[in-house]
């Protein structure tokens, strides 16, 4: 059923979360993400949920983790500096395997940077921001529609893989208003319910099998859980043996990377016959779409591979795009964070980085100018 609205990206994030079944938000205000908190304070109590503004970003994600352990899907929203503060808790959620969603509306950095201007400088912070080896899921919306859809999807992945999932929005996508269909999600699109059966005595909080991740039993049920961010055994008790540490770390990577095909989401624009290919994500994908339209008008076979899933990095799709193109360019609002990943997949295609860190969108013309000499 169509439920078309003219809405801001940040609000669509809140709506997508609620549509997916999230009923808890804890956050700390920061530009340009604050509308997400504001919308949650308005909407959550009406659906029996809880909004709380915490004293800082650490407390925010800690409270979200707590709610998730108690069986209520939760999320938080922030921007670069707040995302830095949350990193320790992202590691905690990864290690404890607590499903939760962190929305990052990126702004100019480093540090305070450009508070009201867009950027995509937190791509690598999303990947490697917390200590230790791990893998992570990060989805990047490029439209208000995708703010709704990908936030809902983030909860699906969070529950399915029992992991924190990052929604990498940005100051353009989050603040932009567009038409969005606030559709009802289908049964199979909703996050899987935590169905736990069997003798409580046999329940194990962990089992370290990437293909058989045990659902996290909510506190208050017969299934006792012990959550620990220290290296632990199946029951969740600290266990520091070298072989166990090796098992824990490899498992945390494998449980994401082994399911990369299911987690990877991309969109193709005019890719069928494209020999000039842009690979982009988030707000920069919109700049690239503008460039594709203009180039097509002038007879250039241009196309765009948009990465909705940024992490785990969609190597297969990117490799295929590199294989079909004469020229590949990567426009992004940073100095080449995803470009480096594309380069690692490249086997000789002409590859161009189109970085911009001025706190404003790349324009289609800037992208065209950047590749002109290569065409």
């Amino acid at each position, binding site marked *: 059923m169509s439920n078309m609205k003219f809405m801001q990206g940040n609000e669509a994030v809140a709506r997508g979360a609620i549509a997916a079944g999230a009923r808890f938000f804890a956050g700390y205000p920061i530009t340009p993400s604050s509308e997400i908190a504001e919308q949650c304070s308005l909407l959550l*109590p009406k659906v029996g949920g809880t909004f709380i503004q915490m*004293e800082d970003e650490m*407390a925010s994600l*800690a409270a979200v983790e707590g709610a998730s352990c108690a*069986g209520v899907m*939760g999320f938080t929203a922030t921007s670069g500096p707040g995302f830095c503060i949350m990193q320790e808790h992202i590691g905690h959620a990864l290690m404890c395997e607590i499903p939760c969603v962190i929305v990052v509306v990126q702004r100019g950095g480093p540090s305070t940077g450009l508070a009201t201007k867009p950027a995509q400088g937190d791509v690598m912070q999303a990947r490697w921001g917390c200590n230790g080896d791990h893998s992570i899921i990060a989805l990047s919306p490029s439209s208000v529609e995708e703010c709704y859809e990908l936030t809902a999807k983030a909860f699906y992945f969070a529950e399915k893989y029992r992991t924190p999932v990052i929604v990498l929005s940005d100051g353009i996508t989050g603040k932009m208003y567009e038409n969005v269909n606030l559709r009802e999600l289908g049964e199979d699109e909703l996050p899987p319910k935590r169905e736990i059966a069997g003798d409580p005595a046999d329940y194990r909080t962990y089992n370290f099998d990437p293909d058989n991740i045990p659902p996290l039993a909510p506190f*208050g049920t017969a299934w006792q*859980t*012990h959550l620990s961010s*220290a290296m632990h055994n199946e029951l969740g008790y600290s266990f520091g043996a070298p072989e166990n540490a090796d098992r824990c770390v490899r498992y945390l990577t494998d449980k994401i990377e082994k399911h990369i095909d299911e987690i990877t989401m991309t969109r193709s624009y005019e890719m069928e016959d494209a020999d000039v290919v842009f690979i982009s994500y988030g707000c920069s994908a919109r700049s690239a779409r503008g460039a594709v339209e203009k180039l097509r008008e002038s007879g250039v076979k241009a196309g765009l591979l948009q990465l909705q899933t940024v992490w785990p990095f969609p190597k297969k799709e990117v490799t295929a795009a590199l294989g079909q193109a004469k020229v590949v360019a990567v426009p992004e609002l940073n100095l080449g964070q995803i470009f480096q990943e594309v380069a690692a997949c490249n086997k000789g295609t002409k590859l161009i980085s189109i970085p911009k860190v001025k706190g404003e969108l790349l324009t289609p013309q800037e992208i065209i100018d950047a590749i002109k000499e290569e065409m």
Partner: protein
Amino acid sequence: MYTYNDYIKEEKLPHIWCAGCGNGIVLNALLHALADMQIPPEEVVIVTGSGCLARLVTYPNTSTIKMLHGRVLAGATGIKLANPNLKVFCLMGDGDGATIGGNHLIHCARRNIDVTAIICNNFNYGMTGGQYSATTPYGAITTTSRYGLVEENFNMAELVKACGAPYVARCSATDVLNLRKYIIEATQKKGFGFIEVLSACVTHYGKNNKMGDAPNMMRQIDSMCVPAARAKNMTEEELAGKYITGKLVDRNDLIDFGTSYQRLREEVTAK
């Protein structure tokens, strides 16, 4: 009918703490209090952070979570608000609860979250080797204040009281029966229940400050305790360096966050 044995995983004993440490006493008092209150074990969540006391999660036969260092009360806030039927017990050392987690302590008390918070104050960071914390007394020797500490310490019970907590109590770890009683009262209080337990770290704080063996150190801590009724008739000078013990706050005029928020939910959905 639940008994103490329903709350403890005996096979995990003996515990890991040093001889003379108060942590075992706190664990014992907590589990006895749970049995006294007949709370079904599956309705109990024990939340800890980092440090010696955080290792307590190994022993109770209930669900447990180790939050990050300092974030015990922030995590507990989410747990309690998501499922108000749970009984949430937050066990922290003075490093976890009053130092790195001090900000969460004051805000959790101010918001009046309906959890029970127990800070076991042994005046230093035991697990990391005896460094000073926000409760280490002025002048004390620790491994990071070799010449004597030049900072003043928090009076935690007064701090939490000033933040508006409806229940605050303090006792020495040797005062086992009162501790058990305070845990019950704090749990039954709708709102933030706070207990500070003065405890001996024989291995570090005691050794560094020449407080003798475990019994000697416990006696010295007991001698620093002044029951509230007696403290009323003492001068400020007489109370210097002392800890006023007993039930310090017991209010029924405050509404906890969860109750207020539930009212708000009902109001906005009725509109």
